[in-house]
């Protein structure tokens, strides 16, 4: 069975859930080989199906943006001629994938939400135009390189050998152009990851800048908290929690929009959620066109009452 190379994202040495999802998807196509940058290979790679782990342990990968990792992955692609290459659809993952595909003269699909295999052909599903269309696409040249969005599969445990093979690459000077001069880890919020959460509760302009009701309601449901662009632009919530075209795309089981009008920019980030609920003072807000259930009312009174009711029901 041919190999499938999987680029692993592991900030601070911890493998992200979307990376484990990639291993599960890779197993549909062939035999997953993890490509891991760092010193200590996490055991989760073998536990989730990596037959091999190519380990690239060199400070150069942390010192420069994208270039060195792209060169290393491209070298592996040239050596192994894999059946496919999967990368996480993060900013970095997408850029690495693009450069690898160009070097390998291979087609590249980004932001896949599903990957299906039929014989030798690999077909992807993407959600485009703010989630208004679903597109099926395939790579027609070279080795399919695919950037896959979070939550595109459920990571499945699959005991594999996880044989570690150290790989060293002579990174060219050209790849060392963009130097990372400082890197400050983000503080953990203690809530689920926005793109991985089953429930997302978000706030917008209607919060007036105070997210306490939104956060309390989210915590009663064990949900992640998100924010609209209006709230982020006003400086009310950090940008990495922004949902929408220029922020995160989420597709949870339940999405609760509070004080968010539902402009196309926001829809782009949440329209594919399974169940959508909104609380908004304005009954004309376009968000109500999307909802399964809506409350026309002030989130400042509706959410505290809902939070109290949930706590009561939980006993």
């Amino acid at each position, binding site marked *: 069975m041919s190999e499938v190379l999987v680029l692993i994202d592991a900030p601070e040495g911890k493998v992200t859930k979307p990376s484990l999802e990639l291993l599960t998807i890779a197993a549909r196509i062939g035999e997953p080989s993890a490509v891991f940058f760092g010193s200590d290979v996490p055991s989760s790679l073998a536990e989730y199906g990596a037959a091999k782990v190519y380990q690239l342990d060199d400070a150069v990968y942390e010192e420069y943006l994208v270039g060195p990792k792209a060169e290393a992955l491209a070298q592996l692609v040239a050596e192994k001629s894999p059946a496919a290459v999967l990368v996480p659809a993060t900013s970095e993952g997408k850029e690495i*994938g693009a450069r690898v595909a160009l070097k390998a003269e291979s087609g590249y699909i980004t932001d896949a939400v599903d990957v299906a295999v039929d014989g030798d052909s690999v077909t992807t599903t993407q959600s485009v135009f703010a989630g*208004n*269309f679903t597109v099926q696409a*395939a790579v027609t040249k070279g080795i399919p390189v695919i950037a896959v969005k979070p939550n595109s599969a459920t990571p499945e445990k699959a005991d594999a050998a996880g044989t570690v093979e150290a790989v060293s690459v002579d990174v060219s000077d050209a790849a060392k152009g963009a130097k990372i001069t400082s890197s400050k880890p983000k503080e953990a919020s203690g809530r689920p990851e926005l793109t991985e959460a089953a429930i997302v509760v978000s706030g917008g302009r209607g919060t007036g800048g105070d997210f306490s009701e939104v956060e309390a309601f989210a915590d009663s449901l064990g949900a992640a908290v998100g924010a609209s662009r209006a709230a982020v632009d006003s400086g009310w919530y950090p940008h990495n929690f922004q949902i929408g075209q220029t922020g995160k795309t989420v597709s949870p089981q339940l999405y609760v929009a509070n004080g968010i009008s539902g402009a196309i920019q926001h829809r*782009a980030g949440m329209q594919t959620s399974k169940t959508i609920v909104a609380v908004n003072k304005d009954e004309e807000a376009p968000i*109500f066109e999307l909802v399964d259930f809506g409350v026309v009312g002030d989130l400042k009174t509706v959410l505290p009452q809902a939070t109290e*009711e949930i706590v009561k029901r939980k006993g």
Partner: protein
Amino acid sequence: MTNIVVAVKYVPDATADRTFSSDNTVDRDNVDGLLSELDEYAVEQALQVVEAGEGEVTVLTVGPEDAADAVRKALQMGADKGVHVVDDAIHGSDAFATSLVLAKAIEKLEYDFVFFGMGSTDGSMGIVPTLVAERLGLPAVTFGSEVTVDGDSVTIRRDGDAATQEISASGKVVVSVTDQTGEARYPSFKGIMAAKKKPVDTWSLSDLGVDAGEVGLENAWTKVESFEPRPPRTAGEIVTDEGDGGVKLVEFLASKKFV
């Protein structure tokens, strides 16, 4: 002297009903187009850099006849001149072919930096800046939420999920900026009038030495096999809060087993 090329894209209006053509490419004929909102931030940042010293901003686009509108908008904002690469053979090009045409055009221009938006509002792959840098052999500092230019070096702040990074490069550099860099200016009346006199060059593929066989739908490395509109959501239940909105909300959540 700092000369900046800003690469921009003419896209279908995101607030209109965007769709596909019969050849599975983005329909650019029946939907009004405009300068991609995300590229306005790149124009703004380039203008700020040049205004702080001396130099010129050249706006570059690759697209059909109508894409001249995107160039004009950037000129109205304050860019000094424009280049429009237009050629029927380009229709349906993928990101790789687009990056090739852009790279060849940029090589013909005098520049210190190349600025891009973080992605287009139609294809939204966000990879053309890194591909152009790869083709030109230049460093790329991408997804900058804050951009600082000092002489021939550029430093950006990149807000990732795991960390906030500072990234620097010098010499000729490719830069992409996010919508966090700050509001883009609106064209002033004076800017609109001045734009009418600003030069716009129109180039074809042969001007760039690009073979038609390297671009276009037939030569794309990927293929859209089919598309379908997302089924419309069925109308939900809307209640007005009369003192029990929160309880009703929880009753709904409980009926769906979320509570």
